[in-house]
């Protein structure tokens, strides 16, 4: 069992875990309540004030409560944050104990398996359930049952207030003659207010339908969520739609997202599984519908009407039905909270970037101008971190899709197989549609970049486009570079300042922490085009050595000097003896790794055999070094010191490269690290070395 795995037992609505479950080694045990005097969750469904709410069909009420507790538990349990590069805490194991009214349904193995499978796909977590008998009064959720006062809808449309859900509503009414009930998950009053405003505008634009709108409040009562990824929200939203549809005796629930968002192919290689959300993924909806078939007494199906359309194609619905003026009332930004109403989009989150590309591709920029975004990602700098990664990865993914032949997309982007759904009909046509969808998206991104390139060519020429904007990332050589400091263009300074070094090179300066490698480099830079033995470097920076060591070093250097004379002073390791050493090093490394693995696997006998082989090889290596240097006594010392110096220099060059890429590149190209180290700048660079520590 992994030490970082979160295993949480969550007891909901006063349920008690069965003894066997409670005895398991949980790392967290927690209670969640939506009722009583101090509930943790606010769970409430809107109704008309003059209509008495009725108890919903028990299994639908249960589904919604389970979904709400899943959502609550999801936010309670941290996935470990974004600083662990291995994401060891990303997946969690969560057991929910929930009282339900329709216990006979929920106790079935097939139902629990489907529930776990559906949630696993949406969240990557392992979900287990312990259902107990719930009281019909205490554990039911009242819900409206006012079909007539809702103008007799014929379907439920999940309405987030984003551009995709708006377009789905427009198309349903204007093209399909449907009568959708708009249903929203409400989690904050801010979102509630603009959702209502958008619905008002929708009613004006399409007066043929009244667009009844209801919501369900599911939110944490207190404090910040420990986990903000909220991958279980997909299940909550789908459950809400299904429960309301069943209550109103409807069979269709529309959950709209354009096809590219729905597939949500990993933006880059660091995003795995549900780290890219799967709220409307075909596989998720397939699993969810299987669950509904297993638990509901009547057929209810959740579908995504936009699964085969790109964002631009979805947005063109507004133009086709003469209501593009609705677009400014939609909100797509995932970081909108706190932004002014005049600028409701941050401009750099994944939703904003995708929205801008979609709007530009659909020719709707007049209704969604750059002024509505806090940052214009096409021309302003994207700072390192989230913003730069989203922007750069978005373009990189589109370019990779564009370069991949259509019939190789499944091979290259293996996640696409998740959209195949082997047990359903029309597999081949759906798979082809997925391929074509991605190709159209990539082409659309390319067209938008060309369009912006032409539109902003004047700004490009004038140097008014930031080098790390989307346009700057397309052709960096055309945009202006601004030196970080003035008057330093020709200076090359390597200056010790207390515990730091100030490095000035080609007009830029950087500061790096003092470390041995930086000091070794100072020696090399001070004597360009000169070979210095690693031992000499080692001795210059290591004071207080014993006299015997010093003598040894001198002896090694003499041996090295003779070697140099014999090999013509190349400093390269390329004699038969040296090649033998490299072969031995390679064998030892492979054997050592295998030895570690044997120990990891607990194969002690095999590990012991490998240890013997390692010992033999190590002895042969010492002999080979002694043979090379002509001196047994020096070989071990030489091995250690050579390794320490070369590693320190290479590491320092990389760290300098992080702070000052130009200098890092220069050093990488001109510093040679071998038995003899040297600095060969081309063209020559005159370094001003200030080596005595001075205050910063």
């Amino acid at each position, binding site marked *: 069992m992994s030490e970082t*795995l979160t295993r949480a037992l969550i007891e909901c609505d006063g349920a008690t875990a069965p003894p066997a479950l409670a005895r398991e080694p949980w790392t967290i045990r927690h209670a969640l309540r939506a009722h009583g005097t101090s509930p943790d969750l606010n769970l409430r469904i809107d109704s008309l004030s003059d209509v008495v709410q009725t108890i919903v069909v028990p299994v639908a009420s249960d589904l919604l409560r389970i979904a709400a507790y899943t959502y609550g538990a999801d936010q309670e349990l941290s996935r470990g944050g*974004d*600083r662990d*590069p*291995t*994401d*060891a*805490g*990303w997946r*969690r194991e969560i057991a929910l104990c929930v009282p339900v009214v329709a216990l006979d349904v929920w106790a079935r193995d097939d139902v629990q398996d489907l529930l776990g499978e559906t949630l*696993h796909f949406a969240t990557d977590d*392992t979900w287990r359930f312990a259902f107990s008998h719930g009281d019909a009064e205490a554990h039911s959720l009242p819900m409206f049952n006012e079909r007539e006062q809702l103008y007799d809808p014929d379907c439920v449309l999940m309405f987030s207030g984003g551009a995709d859900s708006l377009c789905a509503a427009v198309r349903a009414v204007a093209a399909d003659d449907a009568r959708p009930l708009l249903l929203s998950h409400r989690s904050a009053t801010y979102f509630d207010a603009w959702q209502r405003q958008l619905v008002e505008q929708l009613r004006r634009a399409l007066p043929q339908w009244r667009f009844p709108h209801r919501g369900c409040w599911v939110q944490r009562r207190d404090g910040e969520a420990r986990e903000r990824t909220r991958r279980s929200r997909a299940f909550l939203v789908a459950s809400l739609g299904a429960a309301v549809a069943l209550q109103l005796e409807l069979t269709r629930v529309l959950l709209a997202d354009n096809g*590219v968002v729905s597939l*949500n192919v990993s933006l*880059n*290689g660091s995003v*795995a*599984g549900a*780290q*890219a*959300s799967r*709220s409307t993924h075909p596989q998720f909806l397939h699993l969810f519908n299987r669950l509904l078939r297993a638990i509901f007494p009547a057929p209810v199906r959740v579908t995504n009407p936009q699964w085969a359309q790109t964002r631009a194609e979805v947005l063109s619905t507004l133009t086709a039905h003469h209501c593009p003026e609705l677009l400014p009332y939609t909100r797509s930004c995932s970081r909108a909270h706190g932004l002014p109403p005049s600028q409701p989009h941050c401009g750099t989150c*994944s*939703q904003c970037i*995708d929205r801008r590309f979609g709007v530009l591709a659909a020719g709707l920029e007049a209704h969604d101008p750059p002024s509505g975004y806090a940052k214009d990602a096409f021309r302003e700098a994207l700072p390192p971190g*989230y913003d*730069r*990664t989203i922007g*750069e990865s*978005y373009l990189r993914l589109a370019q*990779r899709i564009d370069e991949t032949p259509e019939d190789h997309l*499944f*091979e290259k982007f*293996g*996640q696409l*197989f*998740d959209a195949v759904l*082997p047990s359903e009909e029309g*597999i*081949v046509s759906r*798979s082809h549609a997925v391929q074509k969808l991605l190709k159209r998206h990539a082409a659309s991104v390319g067209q938008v970049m060309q369009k912006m390139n032409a539109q902003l060519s004047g700004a490009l020429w004038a140097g008014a486009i930031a080098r790390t904007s989307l346009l700057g*990332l397309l052709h*960096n050589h055309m945009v202006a570079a601004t030196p970080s400091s003035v008057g330093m263009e020709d200076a090359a300074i390597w200056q010790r300042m207390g515990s730091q070094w100030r490095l000035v090179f080609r007009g*830029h300066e950087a500061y790096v922490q003092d470390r041995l490698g930086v000091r070794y480099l100072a020696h090399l830079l001070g004597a360009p085009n000169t070979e210095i033995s690693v031992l000499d470097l080692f001795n210059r920076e290591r004071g207080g050595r014993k006299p015997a060591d010093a003598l040894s070093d001198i002896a090694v250097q003499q041996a090295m000097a003779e070697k140099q004379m014999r090999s013509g002073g190349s400093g390269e390791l390329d004699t038969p003896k040296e090649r033998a050493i*490299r072969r031995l090093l390679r064998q030892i*490394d*492979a054997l050592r*790794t*295998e030895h*570690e*693995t044997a120990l*990891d*696997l607990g194969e002690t006998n095999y590990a012991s055999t490998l240890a013997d082989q390692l010992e033999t090889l190590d002895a042969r290596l010492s002999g080979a070094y002694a043979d090379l240097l002509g001196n047994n006594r020096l070989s071990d010392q030489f091995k250690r010191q050579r390794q320490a110096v070369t590693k320190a220099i290479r*590491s320092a*060059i*990389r*760290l*300098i490269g992080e702070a000052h*890429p130009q200098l*890092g590149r220069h050093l990488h190209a001109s510093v040679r690290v071998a038995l003899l180290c040297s600095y060969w700048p081309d063209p020559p660079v005159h370094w001003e070395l200030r080596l005595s520590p001075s205050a910063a």
Partner: protein
Amino acid sequence: MGHVRLGRLPKTSRWRSVVGLLSIAPGDVRAVAEATAEAAEMRLRLLALDTTLVYSFWLLTRVTWASRSPAFATVLADLGLEPVDTPSPLTLIAQLGERVRAWSREHPESGPFAELALLALRRALSETVGQENLSLFGSSLEDLRRVLRPYSTAARFGTLAKRFFGDLLARTLRFFVDRELSNRVGGPNTLQTITDSVKFTEALELYARQTAVIMEQYGADWYSKYNWQARGEIPQEEARRFVAYSLAKLRSELRQPEP
């Protein structure tokens, strides 16, 4: 594009060394791969014990061996792959992914690497289908059996093992490197444009695949020895040993200086 959760690299000296290389010498993919493997060494060692990875590879051995049987579909059903109305390479590869995901649901400790293992399995098979000029979509299960049958010999199984581990290694390296790569594109960096970062990504993937060439012979030898003993039913325990030592070989290979 939907919601995306992005991670970061920590500011330890080993990871900063990777970042520095991305700034100064991204063309040296060998050095980037080596530095990444060094910084992520502990996780890579733990990967050797990953049950979902082992299960994915074990499935590869079983599906390959199943192609020897005329009752291919029946043997696949024994592995938990339900018969479907229109079986094809596409549906089989999709179903294998579902099996791996069902397994990983029972083993949450695998973390995101379970997904990488699943994708490596899909890649090994879909690449093989493509290499043999078979269509993922329009071919039958019998066509797939015919194509996979030669891969149930030791020599050809080595090729499958190379594809599996090559893709796994590429994904593992990108899992770490892509946390920082975007920050090292544009501005004063060596990677000036998106085209450069696309080229770097492809070079890194290619390097990973080339590194996994050592798996071809190792995989063939192992398959020859143990498949013969087990008469085609290699136990998961044996697959576990093979995966662990394969990963050790790959880590060691990444550390080797240029010949």
